């Protein structure tokens, strides 16, 4: 049916469906007759005389508003397309960096190093200690003179299997605890300090890190950082830190 609307001039065919219909119809005699009929009728229309009054009346300036290119046409322009893609990539990278920066916290490099330690630690490397994790603060203080190495209330009730104190590669004293639940490991280490003032760089709340299928949540308190690490994702630790305990 579309061929009945086929424009007389080929250049007016700018519709895909119509072009396809014409492609099929061109081989038929009926279409050739229709085209000849239309051409003859068009020639007759073009022969309609234009009165002088009409020619005189045609204004010299245009009445039609300048064409506004819609956004689709702009989008199809290769220059705009390339610029758009570049801006998009820059925006994505900027957002990625911003999110990464927002998640950064003082002591993060140490926490990441300790996640690596967690992944290579075996239970036998620790001294067997079976108690509540919350009770180890006194143990660290009494035995190793480590002040404020306290397990936060969120993890204090978990049962321990063992613990140890070791010096990390920067010579910092690190407390490591192995707990029964989910084979979780706790690390207590000195918070990052300002090299000028020597004061601990504080941050509030829990921060999470993930590295090579290990996840950790870190909190700073009284100049000491606590990290709970687990083999899995941050989701595994989320239930413990979602409800703060007194």
């Amino acid at each position, binding site marked *: *049916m*579309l061929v*009945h*609307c086929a*424009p*007389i*001039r080929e250049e*007016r*065919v*700018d*519709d895909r469906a*119509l072009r396809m219909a014409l492609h099929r119809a061109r081989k038929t005699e*009926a279409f050739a*007759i*229709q085209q*000849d*009929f*239309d*051409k*003859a*009728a*068009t*020639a*007759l*229309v*073009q*022969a*309609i*005389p*234009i*009165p002088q*009054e*009409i*020619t005189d*009346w*045609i*204004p*010299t300036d*245009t*009445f*039609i*508003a300048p*064409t506004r290119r819609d956004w689709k046409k702009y989008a199809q322009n290769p220059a705009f397309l390339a610029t758009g893609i570049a801006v998009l990539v820059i925006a994505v990278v900027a957002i990625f960096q911003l999110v990464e920066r927002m998640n950064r916290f003082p002591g993060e490099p140490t926490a990441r190093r300790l996640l690596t330690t967690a992944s290579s630690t075996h239970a036998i490397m620790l001294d067997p200690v079976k108690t509540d994790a919350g009770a180890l603060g006194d143990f660290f203080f009494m035995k190793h003179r480590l002040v404020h190495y306290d397990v936060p209330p969120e993890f204090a009730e978990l049962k321990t299997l063992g613990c140890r104190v070791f010096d990390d590669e920067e010579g910092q004293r690190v407390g490591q605890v192995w707990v029964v639940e989910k084979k979780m490991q706790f690390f207590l280490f000195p918070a990052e300090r300002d090299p000028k003032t020597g004061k601990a760089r504080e941050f509030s709340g829990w921060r999470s890190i993930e590295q090579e299928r290990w996840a950790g949540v870190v909190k700073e308190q009284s100049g000491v950082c606590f990290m709970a690490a687990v083999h899995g994702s941050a989701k595994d630790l989320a239930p413990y830190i979602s409800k703060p305990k007194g």
Partner: protein
Amino acid sequence: MAEEKQDLLQLYRFCFLMLADAAKAEEVFHATLRQAAQQAANGEPPRDRLWFFRNARWRCLEAGERSLQAEDVKLAQDELAAWAPSQIKKLEPQQLAVWISGAPDPQRTALALFYLDEFNYRDLLSVTELKPLELSKLLCDGRRQFQAWLDATFPSTQT
């Protein structure tokens, strides 16, 4: 600008085909241009050339309603003939305009716009406010009816 001048000349031809009356066609042409000029002066010029044809179409239909009305009869239809071009060559533009202006709308608008050979398929649908199949049927019927009229006017013995 040359393109716009051509469009306006075609606008007059469109009015002429719709009304088959040079004076009335001129009147509608002037009225349409006056409105375009007024809108342009008010800072709201017509968005595109189709505006002129839409505007003129309604003016032509309005003017047509005030004049003699064609009877609502079912016209005979003939298959398009290979000799139709030679039949059409014998016509005067006025005769074609009389035939088109006698058609009921929207067939009248569809035929007048189509034979101006000025628009693509989408433009035709836009101005006539028809669906593709409706436009197709109106044009197809129009051709066959015109062929029947040609056959009646110029019997094959004369072609």
